[in-house]
Structures are given as structure tokens and as C-alpha cells.
């Protein structure tokens, strides 16, 4: 069963909760209170809806990808989150949390970023709403997403390189949480996905479910399959949630298979991980026998994460969503395919979703399939060019 909200302990079934240093707990409780209050306030909803329409460009189109449909023998529709301002779904959440930050009377925002999309979206919301903005980013991601680093700086944000561990999204989230422990009285942490301690997974889902709600309005039939990439899982949660529990729709979350599941170098937390606590929530995660967090691997910085939102963990156990994975190589091939067939360069994250559809096309024959095209691929062009030599 889908749950509109987590239980009193912030749990979706066995998953979620708040495992955070006590210093942060009062801020998390205040945040939940502020969120509930804002979300019930037509004034807040109106302000947000206005910005989503006029500034972000919502609703984003649903596009019928006819050439690729014909090639694959199915009916493929793309939910064009890549056309949202800043080029990904991330902005739905950052505008909403930015408005909430102001409502809470805080003037400063911190955020983490992997691919840089959430960092750019946060920097954008902060510029718009006149908030100070600091973004934590792993050094490896700074290297592979240099363009987004400069975009954040253009928008007036300060980017703090995170050198610990592998220098990717996991370390950036940890550094942001540490930074928040030290600044919690003045600062709001805009987390970028449906991860982290309660109330974040629930709140970010509420801010992202606009994707699926629009799709229900836009598509004049119930799709057979909805496919979305899953790193932390916010775009997938956003498009899935309104359909969860509808037995006519197969929901497919595509995780990063990296070099291949069998190599052990991947980001398939749901497929290959086990329950544990990462970044303040009980969820599926990649860990060793001693409970040490393992490094993930993906060609896509946004999927290079050893955990996943706790509500996805719940959906997995309940059988409400099917979680699969594709490799770096399959994703790269899908990236090229969409570019030459439809004239759309997708984010490498979104290319994972398409790669699964391409692989399973024979089984999906004649089906109506919606892919959440969660972001555009401009940020990945340089990396792909280097890989292609």
C-alpha cells in the first residue's frame, strides 16, 4: 500500500526515520512543522505554483518520441523534465525548499550536489529568493562536471570541494550534513533527493510528485509502463508516486549497473544492497559485513550513490515498484541513440532509463511506455566526448 505520509516516527514500513546527531534533531522537527504548515497553506501553494509555471516552465511537455517508438516497436513518451529551468527536475524541489527557507526566517542555504544539477538548481533558487548559498561537491564530481561548477558560481553560490573518500555524492551529502551541524541555527539544508532523515524523504517527494500529477493530466490513457532512473530517487519518486498502487501500471526504477553488477562496481543499492542507516535514514545501501558504507560507481555522477530514498526501499519490499539496473555502457549507447533519433541529448542519468527500455523492447512490444527524461545532457557532453575519444 502507498502511504500518503510516513508514520509518527517518520517511517515508511521499516524504512526512514531520523538517525541524526542530537544537535540537528530540533531543526528536523522544526522543519517538519514548517513544511506541514506551509503545505496546508493555500498562500504557499499559490506562490509555489506561480513560480513553477512562470519561472520553471511547468507543466513540462509530454513528447511522443515517434521515430524511436517505430524503431523499438512500442509507444514511447518522454516526460520532458529536461525542459524545466536549469535543465532537470531538481528545480521543483529547490524552489519549494527555498520558499520554505524564507518562511522559516532563515537567510542561508547549504546543499550537496553530485552531477551538479541540484547544486545549480539550488543556486538558482537562492539567487531568485535572495538567499546566501553554499554547495558541497566532491572533488571527482567537480572534475567531471566542471561546467556546472562554473554555473553555480555565476549564480552567486560558493562551491566547497569535498576531498574525503571517493570525492563523489556520498561524501558531498556527509559534508553538507556536517556543515549543517555547525550552522543549524541560521541555515537550512536543501537536500537534493528523497533521502536523508525525516522529514526530507517525505517533503521532497511531495515537492516532486508534480511530475506524475502532470503526466496523469497530460497523457490521455493510463500508460502500461513508467520508467525512471534511480540514484537517490527523487525524479522516480516524483513520477511514480501518483501511480503507486495502480496495478495496471508497471513502475520500473533503473539503477546504475556501473561496470556490471558482477564486478561489484555499481550503484545498485536496491538491487544489491542491504538495509542499514545512511545519511540519517534506514534504507537499502551498499555496505560491507561490518556496516561500513561502500563506494558506489556509475558513469553518471547523479547515480553514483551507495544509498537510496527510504520510500523506494519500502516500495521494493512491498513489490510496488520493480527495480532493475543497466550498465555504464548500455546507458552511454542509449545517450547516443536518443540524440541521433530524436534530437534530444539526455542526461546520463535519464539515459539509464532509456537503456532499460531499449534492452527490454521485445517484451514491451506495443506497450505505452513513459520515460521520465529527468534532465538534459549538456552537462555530460564533455565527459562523453572524452570517453568516446
Amino acid at each position, binding site marked *: 500500500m502507498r502511504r500518503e505520509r510516513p508514520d509518527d516516527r517518520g517511517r515508511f514500513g521499516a524504512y526512514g526515520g531520523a538517525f541524526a*546527531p542530537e544537535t540537528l534533531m530540533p531543526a528536523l522537527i522544526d522543519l517538519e512543522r514548517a513544511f506541514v504548515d506551509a503545505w496546508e497553506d493555500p498562500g504557499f501553494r499559490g506562490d509555489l505554483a506561480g513560480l513553477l509555471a512562470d519561472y520553471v516552465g511547468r507543466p513540462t511537455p509530454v513528447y511522443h518520441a515517434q521515430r524511436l517508438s517505430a524503431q523499438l516497436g512500442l509507444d514511447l513518451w518522454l516526460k520532458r523534465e529536461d525542459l524545466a529551468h536549469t535543465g532537470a527536475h531538481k528545480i521543483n524541489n529547490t524552489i519549494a525548499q527555498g520558499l520554505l527557507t524564507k518562511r522559516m526566517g532563515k537567510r542561508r542555504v547549504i546543499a550537496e550536489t553530485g552531477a551538479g544539477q541540484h547544486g545549480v538548481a539550488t543556486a538558482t533558487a537562492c539567487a531568485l529568493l535572495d538567499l546566501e548559498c553554499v554547495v558541497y561537491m566532491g572533488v571527482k564530481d567537480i572534475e567531471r562536471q566542471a561546467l556546472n561548477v562554473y554555473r553555480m558560481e555565476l549564480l552567486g553560490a560558493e562551491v566547497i570541494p569535498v576531498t574525503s573518500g571517493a570525492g563523489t555524492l556520498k561524501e558531498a551529502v556527509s559534508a553538507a550534513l556536517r556543515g549543517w551541524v555547525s550552522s543549524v541555527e541560521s541555515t537550512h539544508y536543501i537536500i537534493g533527493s528523497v533521502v536523508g532523515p525525516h522529514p526530507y524523504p517525505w517533503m521532497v517527494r511531495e515537492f516532486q510528485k508534480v511530475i506524475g500529477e502532470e503526466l496523469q493530466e497530460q497523457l490521455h490513457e493510463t500508460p502500461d509502463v513508467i520508467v525512471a532512473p534511480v540514484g537517490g530517487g527523487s525524479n522516480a519518486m516524483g513520477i511514480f508516486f501518483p501511480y503507486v498502487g495502480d496495478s495496471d501500471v508497471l513502475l520500473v526504477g533503473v539503477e546504475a549497473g556501473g561496470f556490471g553488477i558482477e564486478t561489484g562496481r555499481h550503484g545498485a543499492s536496491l538491487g544489491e544492497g542491504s538495509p542499514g542507516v545512511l545519511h540519517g535514514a534506514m534504507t537499502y545501501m551498499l555496505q560491507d559485513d561490518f*556496516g561500513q558504507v561502500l563506494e558506489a560507481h556509475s558513469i553518471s555522477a547523479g547515480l553514483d550513490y551507495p544509498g537510496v530514498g527510504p520510500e523506494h526501499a519500502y516500495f521494493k519490499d512491498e513489490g510496488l515498484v520493480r527495480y532493475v539496473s543497466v550498465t555504464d555502457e548500455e546507458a552511454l549507447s542509449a545517450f547516443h541513440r536518443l540524440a541521433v533519433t530524436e534530437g534530444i541529448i539526455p542526461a546520463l542519468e535519464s539515459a539509464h532509463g532509456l537503456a532499460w527500455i531499449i534492452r527490454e523492447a521485445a517484451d514491451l512490444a506495443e506497450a505505452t511506455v513513459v520515460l521520465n527524461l529527468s534532465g538534459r545532457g549538456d552537462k555530460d557532453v564533455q565527459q562523453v566526448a572524452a570517453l568516446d575519444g
Partner: protein
Amino acid sequence: MAETTGRDRLAGMFAAAHAEGRAVLLPYLTAGIPTFDDSVRLFRAMADAGADGFEVGIPYADPLMDGPVIMRAGELALEAGVTVDRALELVKQVVAATSKPTLVMTYVNPVLRRGIDTFFRQVRDADASGVIIADLPADEAGPFLAAAESSGLGLALFVAPTTDDGRLATVLEKKPAFVYAIAEVGVTGERDEASSNTEHLARRIRSRSDLPIVFGVGISTAHHARSAARHGDGVIVGTAIVRRVLEAASVDEAAAALASFVEELAAALRSPLPPD
């Protein structure tokens, strides 16, 4: 006659110091720093210099409450193969070598991975007296408190300067072995100034409970320790210890540095500032 439990040993430690009119000194060191064998030697040097007990950190890959120094120590220890099992072996050796009540400090995931009851039983079998879990708020502490109870160990729960009265009552009614009072808003690490939060925090806790109060986070010098001890029953000094070990050129140098620093801290707690 019932065997002495870990929680009894902690209570005995607080009582003995209380009889001397002073707070306890609990140095923290990450297990296996600089090496497994050398770290036993460092704990012994600190015991000889006047430590009342210890906090031994199980190295963790993702320590959300720790600043760069303790993070670095954890990374080094993990690289050197200090697993949870090795860390508990070390705890056993430290207790054998020093006879001091010893707390195991960890994050919640290694405990869950092993199973809460198994973890606490293994901590008890390592002769430790208690457990501190940095990312375990009182709200989620139920099964951990139950495991502590059945293994006779003391579990600390946290109060921070940001904790409001409602949460404070929640923490205190769970009757932890002691209250770990977080002296600074922030992660572990050295500070220039003594905490300005200790007096107010202690007053709020004391007005509601008799539980021992141990201050930690940011206590970096003998002056800081003395200032916090004026309001609490103990102080934990972590980063200032770990940094001295990481900076030392040899284990001899580390042992000498810790001996003189811990002596200084212990002396400061034995000559407290007069109450205001």
C-alpha cells in the same frame, strides 16, 4: 554476589571522582591509531597520566558528527584494517592494561549490521563499560537501551545546546547511564574559546535529573576542561588527543605528548575554578 556490570563501573567512576570533588576525565582515541599495538600503549600512557576512563572510537567510513581530524584518524584506521572486531579486541586489551572503565564510541550502522543485541553482548565481552552512538537520538534509542540493560552496559544519550525542553525531558526520562552534553553546536574539533553553553545546559539538566553530565565536543585545552568541569561530572577530550597522535613523528613522541597533555588536563580538573 552479582557480578559488577559496566553500568556499575561507570557509576563507581563518577562516585569516586565526586567524592574527591572533581569531574572525570575521559580521553577519546580512535581504535588502532597510530597502529593497533601502539594504540594500547597510548591508552596506558593516558591512564598513568590521570585519565579516569576512556572512549575508544570504532573507525567509521561516514562519521557525520566528526570534524576533519577524527575523520582522518578513522580513514587511517580503516585503511590499516581496523574492523569492528579488531576495535573490540583493542578495547579488551586497553581495559586489561589500564583497568579503566571504557566506552565504545560508534555510529549506528555498524551496530545494526551486527544486530543490536549481538553488538552489545560483544562490547560487554570486550570488558567495556558502556556505549556512545553519535547518530542515535533518543527517539530511536529504545532497542539500544534495552540491549544495554540486558548486557549491563551503560548507554549515553545526547543533549545539545539546540535541544529544547520537550526533547530534554524525553532524553532524561529514558535514564541513560549519563547525559552526553554537547558543548558546542558543531562537529568534533578544537575551538579557540571555552564553551559558553555549559553552564546553561547543566542548569537545565540538573533541574530535572540527577544523571551524571559529561561534556564533549570542542573541549581542547586544560582551561576549556576546567571551565566545563565546573558545571558537569565529566569531560571528554577527543580531537585535541587525536591530533597530537597524528602529528607525532613516532609513537614515543605521541606517548610523551599524550602523557603531558593528559597530566595537564587531569591537574586542571583537580583544581577547579570556584563556582560563580
